[in-house]
């Protein structure tokens, strides 16, 4: 019997395993997907640029293993929103890393409150930043207090940031550096960024943090990693008080593993699915689901964007990451400036981004045109060079009706019902997207942009952050896990994931996932 069985080798599972191994515990990770080291990342990068390869092909998603339903009302494109394999979704993430605000944790930005305070998370945030190698300037006046600078110096602002800075100043908007989980200089045995420009979905240099790095460190400490081992269900003792074993499939055969403690780190969709698949006499509605809340309160961040062209060069698509943002409206989304009117009404938090990859990438465009020779060269030269764009994330309020459930009418490659993403974009979110668009328009007009597109309330899309489906609570009837990440109902079952977020604010979740994973590891260690 191993001390701890971790389900999932993404950032949460990697950090839990590494920390417990460092504390001398025996740890085994079961990972549904493969190691990704057979194909060079440069080849995956080429797949991401060339039109002959679907987006899901880059990290080998899709097929019967990953079948899902999205019964609406709004469609959710689940398989472009996640990666199964060592490193998990950090293989294809953008690498944007922020600490949630105090007003997120208190529930003032979006209810409900967390049962943890910023002070509870603060030391873990710093450790997660060190694990990821976060490059930042620590200059965001709206961010919560820091005890020391980011581990790495920030990437300097882009040329287009300098164009935006002047326009922002003229309409009373403050800008600041965007922290990146990306090496601005060599760090932790990984290289510095070399500007391949394809960060999402592939960093071919290893400069972007990906959790396979931490998995390797964990393995060096003695952690056993079993890949291609999808867990089918968890089984408990007769009373349903403790998980006794995980049942998984490998090489076509069903196998089991026993452990003192089990940690679920398989993301906001597969974790509730596994709990629901593990229903038993003792847990008839699904494991650890006495609250009935497993799978409920699924929420994401929604994209708000706008862009167009200037009559001067803007130098886009040299890099694939963002260097400047504004979090000015985050805690006070209705606040006005001298130039931008204030708005009343119930609004969600949002942040604003200044993109460095607006408009076409010439090489990607070249492969999709119906011309070549001089005509193609002229088309590329005409299309490239003057685009600018802003993005932004709006924090969707968690609603009980948005949920992950089982679609009993469809099964995956092992005969298990597939997950059904039941998801709807609510009015508060749409209203906030309009508010973000209003500010984006003010900035772009001040810059003199000929606005050509808007991602507004009707054509927004999710940011692929799966949160809320095993929410954390003090009271057992109000959530699935306790503030220490253990489930309320089962004494040796823990969850490390964005699935425990009561609300996810409007900031990319992975740094908070990392912080919670470290907190979870300490809780598990104390229980052993």
């Amino acid at each position, binding site marked *: 019997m191993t001390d701890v069985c971790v389900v999932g080798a993404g950032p949460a599972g990697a950090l839990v395993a590494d920390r417990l191994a460092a504390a001398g515990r025996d740890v085994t990770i079961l990972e549904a997907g493969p190691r990704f080291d057979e194909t060079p990342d440069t080849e995956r990068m080429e797949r991401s*640029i060339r039109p*002959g390869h679907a987006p899901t092909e880059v990290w080998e998603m899709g097929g019967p293993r990953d079948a899902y339903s999205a019964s609406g009302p709004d469609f959710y494109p689940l398989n472009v929103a996640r990666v199964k394999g060592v490193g998990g979704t950090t293989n294809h993430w953008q690498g944007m890393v922020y600490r949630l605000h105090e007003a997120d944790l208190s529930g003032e930005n979006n209810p409900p409150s967390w049962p943890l305070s910023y002070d509870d998370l603060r030391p873990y945030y710093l450790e997660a930043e060190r694990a990821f190698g976060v490059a930042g300037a620590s200059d965001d006046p709206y961010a919560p207090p820091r005890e020391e600078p980011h581990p790495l110096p920030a990437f300097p602002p882009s*040329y287009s940031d300098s164009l935006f800075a002047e326009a922002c100043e003229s309409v009373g908007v403050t800008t600041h550096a965007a922290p990146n989980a990306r090496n601005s200089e060599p760090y932790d045995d990984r290289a510095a960024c070399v500007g391949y*420009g394809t960060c999402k979905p592939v960093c071919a240099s290893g400069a972007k943090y990906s959790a396979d790095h931490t998995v390797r460190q964990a393995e060096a400490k003695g952690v056993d990693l079993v890949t291609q081992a999808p867990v089918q269900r968890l089984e408990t003792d007769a009373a349903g008080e403790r998980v006794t074993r995980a049942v998984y499939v490998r090489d076509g055969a069903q196998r089991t593993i026993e452990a003192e403690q089990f940690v679920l780190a398989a993301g906001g969709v597969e974790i509730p699915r596994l709990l629901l698949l593990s229903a038993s006499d003792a847990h008839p509605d699904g494991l650890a689901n006495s609250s009935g809340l497993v799978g409920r309160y699924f929420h994401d961040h929604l994209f708000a964007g706008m862009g167009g062209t200037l009559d001067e060069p803007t130098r886009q698509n040299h890099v694939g990451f963002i260097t400047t943002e504004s979090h000015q409206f985050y805690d006070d989304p209705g606040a006005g400036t001298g130039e931008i009117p204030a708005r009343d009404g119930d609004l969600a938090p949002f942040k604003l981004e200044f993109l460095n990859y607006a408009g076409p990438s010439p090489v990607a465009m070249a492969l999709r045109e119906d011309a070549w*020779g001089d005509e193609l*060269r002229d088309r590329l030269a005409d299309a490239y060079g003057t685009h600018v764009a802003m993005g932004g994330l709006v924090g969707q309020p968690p609603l009980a009706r948005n949920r992950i459930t089982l679609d009993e009418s469809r099964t995956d490659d092992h005969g298990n019902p597939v997950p059904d993403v039941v998801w709807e974009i609510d009015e508060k979110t749409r209203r906030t997207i309009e508010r973000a668009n209003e500010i984006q328009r003010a900035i772009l007009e001040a810059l003199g942009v000929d606005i050509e597109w808007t991602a507004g309330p009707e054509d927004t899309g999710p940011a692929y952050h799966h949160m809320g489906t095993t929410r954390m609570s003090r009271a057992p009837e109000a959530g699935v896990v306790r503030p220490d990440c253990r489930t309320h109902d089962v004494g040796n079952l823990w969850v490390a994931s964005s699935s425990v977020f009561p609300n996810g604010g409007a900031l990319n979740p992975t740094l908070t996932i990392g912080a919670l994973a470290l907190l979870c590891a300490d809780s598990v260690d104390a229980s052993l």
Partner: protein
Amino acid sequence: MRLTRRDALAALSGAGITLGGGVAALSRESVDASEAGPSLDDTLATLTAAAEVVYPSDVEGIEAFVEAYSLGRIEGRDEYLAGVHDATVALDETALSWEDARFAALAADRRDTVLRQLGVPTADEDPDGTRAERVRYYVVNELLYALYASPTGGELVGIENPQGHPGGVASYQRGPR
């Protein structure tokens, strides 16, 4: 603008291929071409002939660039080489059938016509698709990727550090020159 073997190496490095011996290591002899397939000379000649059509007219040094790039791409990648062989043979067979000469032996305007009549301009690249889709994947888009993911090709259209090229983190900060 003149392409060189050095540009080919830059393009190859973006494709994750580095050659220990640098430029000097690239030669036809260094590539272990399949004995069963068409000759490497024929394949390279077809690729070069296609590049002369799909590259802009102000690009020089195409033959050396294509040869160095293609040899680097082929080395140690049997499946890729098989795909390139298949597509170049298909192109040659089409040219022989329609124009009574191999693709590389045709005048440039006839090569352009063959590619267009084959439907390559509107074909979606697909390594396992129709003849036009395979030619688009292994010939036309392969050559366009080599050019426009390289700094020299990027500069033709205004970007010296295009996607796919590890051109560092200084260029994004610089204003227009």
